[in-house]
């Protein structure tokens, strides 16, 4: 593992790794899913796989909001922003994500007014600074970013800012986990639960995973020690035949979540009957739409949205990788047609997608070793 020496508690890391070896039955495979894209990134970055016994496999889940966003949503929003009176505002993460006719950045190069904002509240500021234009904020993210969009909608309404709307793509994590567990080819032993999402929703919404699906889930922080300790906690449950929700990230995540955030979300959003996820297809009640009380600030209610659908190329096997049936490199397109520079499938789109993380850390590393060891 790469960072053991520079970490504040190297002995604790070694202890946790030993504990994992002690708890893991060498005669059975363990398949644990980390739901959050931040965890996927950390696992590759820290080289955690190197300290785990070979029979513990980490499956990278659907928790990167950029990756799971269907291309049609980007196309829809960009087609609204073709209007010269519209400013398209989005987080920097969205800027290089391809739509059918190019990314937001490429549209900017062709003359579209595209702005990066780092906070939804800055999109409101942009609207105030450009009263003759309409600012459309392309909102994206799980429960980590949805509350800030909620407060921004409340503020737009309270301040009567009418040249501002939100193109809402917020998704919720629980239905995605349910869809993965419902999938017939899915075999999982436990979950490393998301850290920041749980700051908002708390730990209670995961209880059905333990009660009904009999799988352990441990809400986890982002340091190497957090991840190893969470794996210890999952293995300890499995050894005792238990399945419960535990909170390893107590220093940040309250069991009940953030009530003010949940209240703001309930006031401004309601569940969509269904929403499409790249790689997973349509999942019922898995995304948020803006309530009618805020219709004036909802781009979809205010303007005509075409509802463009773009299917991923059949050769891309994102769904199988998401469910852990295939490893990233086993997809036919991986590293050939589909790379982080030219992503074909969902999981290559952002660095937190499992294919991009695998490509950036494992694939490039392997290629480097090969090129160094092969004679010139």
């Amino acid at each position: 593992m790469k960072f053991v020496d520079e970490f504040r508690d190297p002995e604790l890391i070694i202890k946790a790794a030993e504990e994992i070896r002690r708890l893991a039955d060498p005669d059975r495979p363990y398949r644990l899913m980390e739901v959050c894209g931040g965890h996927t990134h950390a696992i590759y970055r820290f080289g955690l796989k190197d300290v785990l016994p070979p029979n513990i496999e980490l499956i990278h889940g659907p928790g990167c909001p950029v990756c799971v966003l269907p291309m049609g949503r980007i196309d829809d929003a960009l087609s609204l922003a073709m209007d010269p009176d519209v400013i398209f505002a989005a987080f920097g993460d969205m800027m290089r994500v391809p739509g059918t006719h190019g990314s937001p950045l490429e549209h900017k190069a062709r003359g579209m007014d595209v702005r990066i904002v780092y906070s939804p509240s800055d999109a409101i500021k942009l609207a105030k600074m450009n009263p003759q234009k309409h600012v459309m904020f392309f909102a994206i993210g799980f429960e980590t970013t949805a509350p800030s969009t909620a407060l921004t909608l409340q503020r737009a309404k309270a301040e009567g800012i009418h040249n501002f709307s939100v193109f809402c793509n917020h998704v919720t994590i629980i239905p995605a986990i349910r869809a993965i567990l419902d999938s017939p080819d899915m075999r999982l032993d436990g979950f490393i639960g998301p850290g920041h999402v749980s700051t908002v929703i708390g730990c209670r919404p995961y209880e059905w995973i333990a009660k009904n699906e009999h799988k352990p889930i441990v809400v986890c922080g982002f340091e190497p020690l957090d991840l190893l300790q969470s794996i210890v906690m999952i293995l300890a449950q499995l050894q005792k035949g238990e399945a419960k929700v535990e909170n390893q990230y107590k220093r940040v995540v309250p069991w009940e979540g953030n009530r003010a955030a949940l209240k703001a979300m309930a006031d401004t959003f309601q569940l969509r009957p269904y929403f499409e996820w790249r790689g997973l297809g349509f999942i019922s009640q898995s995304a948020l739409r803006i309530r009618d009380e805020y219709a004036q600030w909802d781009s979809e209610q205010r303007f005509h949205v075409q509802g463009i659908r773009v299917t991923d190329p059949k050769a891309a096997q994102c769904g199988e990788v998401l469910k852990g049936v295939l490893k990233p490199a086993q997809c036919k397109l991986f590293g050939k047609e589909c790379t982080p520079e030219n992503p074909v499938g969902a999981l290559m789109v952002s660095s937190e997608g499992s294919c991009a993380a695998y490509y950036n850390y494992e694939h490039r590393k392997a290629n480097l070793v090969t090129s160094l060891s092969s004679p010139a």
Partner: protein
Amino acid sequence: MSPEDEAKNPPGGCHMCLALPGKVVEIASDNRRSALVDVVGMRRRVDLGLLEDDRPVPGDWVLIHVGFAMSKISEADALDQMRTLEMLGESEAAVQEVRGYGLEEVEDKHSP
């Protein structure tokens, strides 16, 4: 860029998922939801609207997502979080993120 450098700086990050620790410096006198916060060496206006139930006071540490404080944390945890960002190779992204808050219009005059 060598393959090794590229591995260190993969294209297309996910900055909106970053949680940045910041220390509350001052609550606005005309709007208690708005605070001046020290984040990775810069001072920015941060929204406290999501901490209505447990309002921070100057000196408290908070974790910030996309310009909104999401939870109160201890100073030790804040320092750990900074270290985690560094280890994840995300401290540059964090600086870029914070610099962008307020559309780069908030003055840095209070900064040391």
